[in-house]
């Protein structure tokens, strides 16, 4: 790995990304396990078009489950609401008013203009790796799993503006096909042992050859092309790592996937979401993966709303978000907001149903939800609605709401103003929660900072 001509750092360098964008890993040992020895997991769930803020944020200082977060109330003691964090880097560097262009910054704490675009829209891309990638890479040094990192989506973002990034300018692709995901995670377990060994040996010789070819091919190319080949080579190395049999295989039953859905049909969105959640729950329970990202919508979501009910049932989600101030649309937006939290609650319950090390799998996990914007009408990217479910092995002090920033009394609700506290600091906190200590996370000039001690 270190003999490759294309180390991560070299790639970043050739892409012109500052090494400062790489979170500095502290020298302390990466553990990846809770105090009880159970594995820790991180799941991020992202969707867009904001929430009805006054029904998401608690009105007082106490944890409160208003209309939007109602589905999480049954798990009250395991919920933590960090209220009022700003997407500082986007606010300071984003080319456009917030909203549909924040995805790249949500998990990376970085953003930059994606480059030339005639006849297109200014896109933002990440300038550094996302938190899932950093954690999975660090854990990958210690533990070998079939899929340390899973990047999934229901409605995938176009290639360049998803939430998960291998490095600056290098998006990770999100798998939106649950059947494909099923094959990756579970199908090889149906092959007889002898055939698996043969398959592994053959794949190993192919990957070995392809890796050498890529190295040779890359030497003469210009900087930009060499970086592309370097990224390809990293992917080949990742496949090689995945060939290693799981270090600690647990007997684990594959979930039922049922009859095949037509994933292109908007009316299958609800069932499609459930299928992805089921697969995630199983993969986590079986310890096939430790870090999962899930994009429920893409950054500019304009498909039909997932509820498919009520007046104007065929309005798009984007339209509904923009027009939530209209009385009849307001209730619909509220229903949709709640629907998304029902999905989060569904996943949380599935993990909470599985006992592990004296607690449950949920207790050893953190499900963290993000939204591309705070409010669907104003498209603002301060005061983000973020929730954390699960204490990540006791790291987070849950059952609370924590309010960041100053209350500006009289002039409006606290969540309708900038708090001045960057969400990048939450990303640093997530690293710590997963026992990947970092000094800071994100763009050092724009919002990077230390972990948020208020949450622990």
């Amino acid at each position, binding site marked *: 790995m270190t003999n490759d001509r294309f180390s991560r750092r070299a790639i970043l360098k050739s892409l012109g990304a500052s090494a400062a964008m790489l979170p500095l890993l502290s020298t302390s040992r990466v553990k990846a396990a809770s105090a009880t020895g159970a594995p820790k997991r991180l799941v991020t769930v992202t969707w867009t078009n904001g929430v009805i803020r006054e029904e998401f944020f608690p009105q007082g200082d106490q944890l409160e489950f208003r209309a939007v977060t109602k589905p999480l109330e049954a798990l009250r003691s395991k919920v933590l609401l960090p209220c009022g964090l700003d997407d500082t880097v986007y606010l300071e560097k984003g080319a456009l008013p917030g909203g*549909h262009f924040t995805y790249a910054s949500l998990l990376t704490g970085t953003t930059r203009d994606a480059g030339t675009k005639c006849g297109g829209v*200014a896109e933002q891309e990440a300038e550094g790796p996302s938190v899932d990638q950093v954690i999975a890479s660090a854990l990958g040094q210690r533990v070998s799993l079939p899929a340390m990192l899973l990047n999934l989506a229901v409605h995938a973002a176009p290639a*360049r503006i998803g939430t998960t990034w291998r490095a600056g300018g290098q998006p990770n692709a999100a798998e939106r096909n649950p059947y494909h995901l099923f094959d990756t995670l579970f199908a090889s377990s149906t092959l007889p042992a002898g055939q698996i060994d043969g398959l592994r040996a053959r794949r190993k*010789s*192919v990957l070995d050859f392809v890796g050498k*070819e890529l190295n040779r091919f890359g030497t*003469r190319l210009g900087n930009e092309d060499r970086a592309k080949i370097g990224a390809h080579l*990293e992917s*080949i190395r990742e496949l090689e790592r995945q060939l290693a049999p799981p270090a600690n295989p647990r007997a684990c039953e594959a979930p039922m996937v049922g009859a095949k859905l037509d994933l292109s049909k*908007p009316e299958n969105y609800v069932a499609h979401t459930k299928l992805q959640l089921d697969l995630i729950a199983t993969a986590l329970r079986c310890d096939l993966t430790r870090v999962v990202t899930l994009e429920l919508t893409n950054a500019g979501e304009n498909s039909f709303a997932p509820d498919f009910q009520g007046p104007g049932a065929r309005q798009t989600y984007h339209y509904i978000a923009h027009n939530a101030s209209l009385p009849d649309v307001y209730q619909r937006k509220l229903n949709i907001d709640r629907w998304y939290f029902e999905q989060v609650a569904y996943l949380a319950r599935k993990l909470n149903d599985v006992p592990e090390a004296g607690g449950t799998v949920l207790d050893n996990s953190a499900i963290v939800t993000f939204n591309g914007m705070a409010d669907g009408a104003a498209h603002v990217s301060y005061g983000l609605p973020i929730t954390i479910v699960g204490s990540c092995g006791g790291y987070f002090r849950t059952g609370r709401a924590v309010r960041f920033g100053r209350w500006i009394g009289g002039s409006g609700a606290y969540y309708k103003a900038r708090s001045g506290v960057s969400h990048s600091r939450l990303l640093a906190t997530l690293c710590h929660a997963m026992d990947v200590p970092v000094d800071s996370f994100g763009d050092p000039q724009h919002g990077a900072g230390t972990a948020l001690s208020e949450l622990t």
Partner: protein
Amino acid sequence: MSPRMAALLMPFVALGCVGVIGDDHDPPPGGHAGAGGDQELTAGPMPMRRLTRREYDNTVRDLLGERSSWGQTLSPDRDPGFSFSRPSVVTTLEAADLRGAAEALTAAAIPRLGRLLGCNPTAVGEPACARSFIESFGMRAYRRPLDRAEVDALVALYQTGRTPLALAFPQAVGLVIETILQSPGFLYRWELGPQAPAREGALVRLRSYEVASRLSYFLWSTMPDQALFDAAAANALDTSAQVEQQARRMLADPKARVSLADFFEEWLKLDELDELSKEYAGFNDALKSAMMQEARTFATHVAFDGDGRFGTLLTAPFSFVNNALARLYGITGVRDTTLSRLDLDAGQRSGMLTQAGFLARTGDPDGSHPVRRGKEIFEGFLCKVVPPPPGEVPPPRPVMPGLTTRQRFEDHAKNECAAGCHALFDAFGFAFEHYDGVGRYRTMDSGARVDSSGRVTIDGAARSFNDAPGLTRIVAESEEARRCFAVHWLRFAFRRLETEADGASIDAVMTRFARSGHDMREVLVSLTSTPSFRYRSLNPGEVMP
């Protein structure tokens, strides 16, 4: 919806546009070679790029003789910052998909290996047969001859398959195929051979095999055929006349029709139809597919069976229609589910901008969208750049009785901060107010008569029109639109934006385009003989062996 569409309710900016587009006829700073003169040859860069999904399937078809739809399992090639498909970097997911495709294609090829081998292993011996297969198959897969070291490495891989892995001869050859299908020489288009690049001043002249590949992927979206390989082997692709002669031969091949249809499908972004839903009961997969086929069939008909003229694309009063499209166009008596040529009402339909595909793709689920349509034409057909917005623009007012779409959006444009940019392109969209969200013709909108008249600036002059046929006639005769068309072909051919260094090449194409009476076939042919096609600039950081 795509963020591109999302942005229509949002302000947009277009930064970093370079080079020759726009209405400024002065040569850009630094100057490019004009017609004649002895100015230095200039050509733009040639970024390495991976085969698109379509190119992957076509190449596999020609290489293995195997119909493949494996390309469709790869991530979409859509690049939000670019007009045409362009694959992103190979992520782990992508690498696993490429492996899955290679394994399946190899498994399917092994039973028919005899046809691929080109030798009889029992007659000449297995090792000799494997080596000769590697030489010939490798050349076709990498689109250039392999050097000795490359052949030896693949032979060693074959032997690994035979002995340590204990594979039978066909399976060991299969291991080689599977590996080649995942190798950069196959997956990437730079045709980087062991030879040193041929430097000519500041430029690199493409060698015969590179020119052969460039021609075949440009005109056929696939690997070269035997005639191109033969020409490359004979160094018969060195002059612009030789290249052009090949281009003319290739345009007569049915593969060129498919590739040209791909250009129009991508230019009009019709692949996005797939993701759209509409308030129109018949808007199903069959209709979406018919819309796509209509545009593809119409474009190839005009280019290859019709007069070939650019203006015809934008003004033809006929199209290719099946029963579902006929219903949408308000024509009765069409029963067939396959498309056939039909004359339409010339007052309602005029070329591909008034066809259902473009109108549905740019329309809203429940109505027209003049701003989106206007911006599409302004940027996509005139190559004009929308200036950055001054601040946050509120969305237009929601639908309400008694307020037409145009009124809602005009209201929006009156907004102080929206007027600056919208004034430039909204009128292009108002021309299409006669078409609803799926492209049906309408005379009334929200109880009022549709007003599709307007005034736009084209080629530096103000022009008025009454409706879409009027506007499309103006666009069809516009120099800006013709140049934008040629520029899009350059982008399609090279899968990159134009640079200043392409200026001379674009000028040369425009001269030939005009001389032919704006026959679009001449754009394709003349592009292949330009410096930008036959040469490339050095890439920053490139290492010369």
